[in-house]
């Protein structure tokens, strides 16, 4: 196998780069070790498109956030990903907080963010009636928005695929081959791929990947954040993204509606050693519940439908590392993409295209040529909404599968699940179907629909039900056929 560019990692950064690069005459392969894209930090985060007033104007984090924020309207319309620019409120409780709010506003305005204002008193509670009554001020930033981070990432990947990028899932990078400190190719669990350019977008593991090429300059530490997701009956409890005044480590525990109409609280912030550790702890969940209670009043934990954790990839220097490796030619590192990395991803992708262009010109005397045709739009898949029943009726009459409701909490039809299984980046597990369709994402958390979804995946892919997993790897749902265990133990007697 051979490619002009190999991208390591199918998170939002890797897929955004893949899509941006797919506008050019390049042979691109993206490698992802998991069974789907968006399996790391891009899966479990707050789903916020930040306004960008937090990071200093001099940092990459600050610059790329502000550059990327306005891009989301067009991007999401092209990719058919729901996005709502609902604005954010940074809440202050006293005069010290007010000072911070003013500093943030000034910092944001210096970077060109418009429309921010300080609101207080009655005006504040008009915006957010359920705020904690002790709240006094807020910095309102109208350009902040909410998005589903995994749906955005999957859509970027789908778009990259229809524009010619090859995405190899379940494919692990074993080693990087170099000669005279220049990239020759990558050894993977699927074989060797010859390439001159490797883009290291491996998130939490980008230090290992750089290390394989002989660049040990990066060290990534994982910081966990835990979340509670509430039932949809809490979906309009707040109207904006509600932030506390941030501390030095993070933006703090926020409260926000999600783009699908749930309520999300979290995340906390603490270091973990194991970069695969996505467990939630009692203490952590208590911390976010208490934290959210400082911002809004009246939350009821009995309506939590899911708790989960995500990991942030942070470097010592606290800023993004985006650039050519100083040690290995052909290696471009995109590492330490912590918050606001999700927001910054489209701008990161643009920056990486420039790096590739520069490298090709300098090292290969090649020009990066745009393709004649780039398919910017993804097709709109049918999505059931109660707002448009007539359209749904027509659809069912064309294809009966859209009238067979499989997930009753979120009202997801067999047709939608089938479409996800046969999408550009196909869904092959229960969780992959859930991320694309929301089947199993509702209040019963798949207790009702999981057996039905499993059956559809097996039928559509021609697999046995015992081969279907929750999330790839060894996460099989069913172990044997009925009587299988008795047969194994020699205890089954058919007489």
């Amino acid at each position, binding site marked *: 196998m051979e490619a002009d560019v190999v991208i390591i990692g199918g998170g939002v950064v890797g897929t955004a780069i893949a899509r941006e690069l797919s506008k050019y005459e390049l042979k691109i392969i993206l490698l992802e070790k998991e069974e789907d894209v968006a399996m790391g930090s891009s899966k479990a985060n707050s789903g916020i498109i930040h306004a960008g007033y937090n990071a200093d104007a001099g940092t990459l984090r600050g610059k790329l956030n502000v550059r990327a924020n306005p891009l989301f309207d067009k991007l999401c319309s092209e990719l058919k990903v729901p996005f709502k620019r609902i604005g954010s409120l940074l809440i202050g409780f006293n005069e010290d907080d007010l000072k911070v709010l003013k500093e943030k506003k000034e910092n944001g305005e210096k970077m060109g963010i418009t429309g921010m204002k300080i609101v207080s008193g009655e005006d504040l509670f008009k915006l957010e009636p359920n705020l904690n009554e002790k709240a006094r001020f807020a910095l309102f930033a109208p350009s902040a928005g909410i998005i589903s981070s995994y749906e955005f990432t999957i859509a970027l990947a789908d778009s990259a695929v229809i524009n010619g990028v090859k995405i190899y899932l379940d494919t692990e990078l074993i080693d990087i081959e170099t000669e005279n400190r220049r990239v020759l190719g990558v050894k993977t669990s699927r074989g060797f791929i010859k390439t001159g350019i490797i883009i290291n977008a491996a998130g939490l593991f980008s230090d290992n990947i750089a290390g394989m090429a002989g660049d040990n300059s990066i060290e990534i530490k994982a910081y966990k954040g835990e979340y509670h997701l509430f039932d949809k*009956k809490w979906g309009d409890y707040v109207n904006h993204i509600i932030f506390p005044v941030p501390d030095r480590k993070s933006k703090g525990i926020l409260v926000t509606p999600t783009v699908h109409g749930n309520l999300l609280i979290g995340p906390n912030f603490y270091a973990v050693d194991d970069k*695969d550790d*996505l*467990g*939630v*702890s*009692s203490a*952590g*969940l208590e911390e976010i519940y208490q934290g959210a209670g400082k911002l809004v009043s009246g939350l009821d*934990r009995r309506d939590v*439908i*899911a*708790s*989960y954790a995500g990991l942030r990839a942070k470097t010592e220097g606290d800023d993004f590392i985006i650039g050519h490796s100083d040690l290995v030619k052909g290696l471009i590192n995109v590492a330490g993409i912590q918050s606001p990395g999700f927001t910054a991803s489209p701008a990161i992708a643009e920056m990486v295209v420039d790096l590739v262009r520069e490298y090709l010109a300098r090292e290969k005397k090649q020009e990066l040529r745009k393709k004649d045709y780039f398919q910017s739009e993804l097709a709109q898949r049918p999505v059931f909404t*109660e707002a448009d*029943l*007539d359209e*749904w*009726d*027509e659809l*069912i*009459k064309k294809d*009966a*599968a*859209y*009238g*067979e*409701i499989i997930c009753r909490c979120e*009202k997801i039809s*067999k047709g939608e699940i089938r479409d996800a299984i046969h999408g550009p980046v196909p869904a092959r597990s229960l969780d992959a179907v859930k991320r694309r369709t929301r089947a199993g994402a509702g*209040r*019963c*958390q*798949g*207790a*009702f629909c*999981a*057996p039905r979804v499993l*059956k559809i995946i097996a039928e559509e892919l021609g697999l046995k*039900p*015992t081969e279907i*997993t*929750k999330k*790839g*790897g*060894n*996460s099989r*749902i*069913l*172990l*044997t*056929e*009925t*009587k*299988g*265990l*008795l047969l*194994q*133990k020699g205890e*089954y007697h058919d007489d």
Partner: protein
Amino acid sequence: MIDYDLVVVGGGPAGLAAALEAKKNGIERILILERDKYLGGILQQCIHNGFGLLYFKEELTGPEYADRFIKKLSGTNIDVKTGTMVVRINRKKEITALNSKEGLLFIKAGAVILAMGCRERTREAVRIPGDRPAGIFTAGTAQRYLNLEGYMPGKEVVILGSGDIGLIMARRMTLEGADVKAVLEIMPFSSGLMRNKVQCLDDFGIPLLLKHTISRINGKDRVESVIISKADENMSVITGTEKEIPCDTVLFSVGLIPENELSREMGLSLDKATGGPVVNELRETEVRGIFACGNVLHVHDLVDYVSEESEIAGRAAAAYIRDGLERREREIIVERAENINYIIPQKISFIDREREMIKFFMRVKRPEEDVRISIADGENKKLASYKRDLLTPGEMLVINFPEKLIKDNTEKIKMFIEKERR
């Protein structure tokens, strides 16, 4: 717009009994809407016995119990639409539904019976920390995989919660060759039926660990182990009591929640204790002509009571459609003492010269021994009293209260449970 006298939402045991009873009482145009492909609801996966002892005076399996009603139905002109999902019901009794054959359906009903049943509480409802690997199921989902799909979801099993489905599944998985290591219950008493504890755990030597819970689930891809801990009376984990049990499967049997999203969306008020709509003795909700019965109203211990309750609703809907209900001038509120978890009905709204008894279904909050259940009027005058040896939250308590004890001017009645004086 399709027109029916009565639309029954849900074709499980509640919906079936209600529709048949309405038919028996002279209603002609009846429609049952069922979202699954078949009638009978959850009974179809309950292949164990123990159903029907009260209602049919014989012991049946779940599918057999359902089949009795389904057979009766096939002899009637009651319309059934399976594979049909109700999307919306409004207070004018207009129903929006969809299925794959007909697309969107708009139905106008003279009366509506809500019989949507319930769903299982999940791991989140009891906030068990740890990883989120494969191998974590609600007991009912595991039951479906095993009994309807024909696959074993696990080999080494720990069950959290002593609800009836969990107990049944402990036995079922053992019979299939799995090693059920323990059933944990955070309360000091089992929350299921006594007979299930004996027949499903004791008879198979499966330990029931009371005052225990899972304090963490471990496993990256598939469950690898659970950490169990003792719990104190506030249901908090006692640190220092942790023990690891290797297993590949965790089943949750931690209670059921009436499925009332449609009820909530139409603005019906729900009783916090039952999770179901507030109803009067004919199971009519606060919207006249909209009734609720079965597990959508409150979680029953035995399906036999579901059938009985649904017949009340079916008869009442028939009377409503024929305009044959006589309402009291003032509704009688049913109050309860602290140790009673809930009482159905929450109010009495009708005058019925023919009925002798009003039947109350209730559950206690904690086990009570040697007690007297008493009913008093607004002036605390005792009207009736019933002796019971043992009450547990897992078993529903049924009280028949003589109608004649209610006076025309009665505004409320109050129930309480006291220690029997010796």
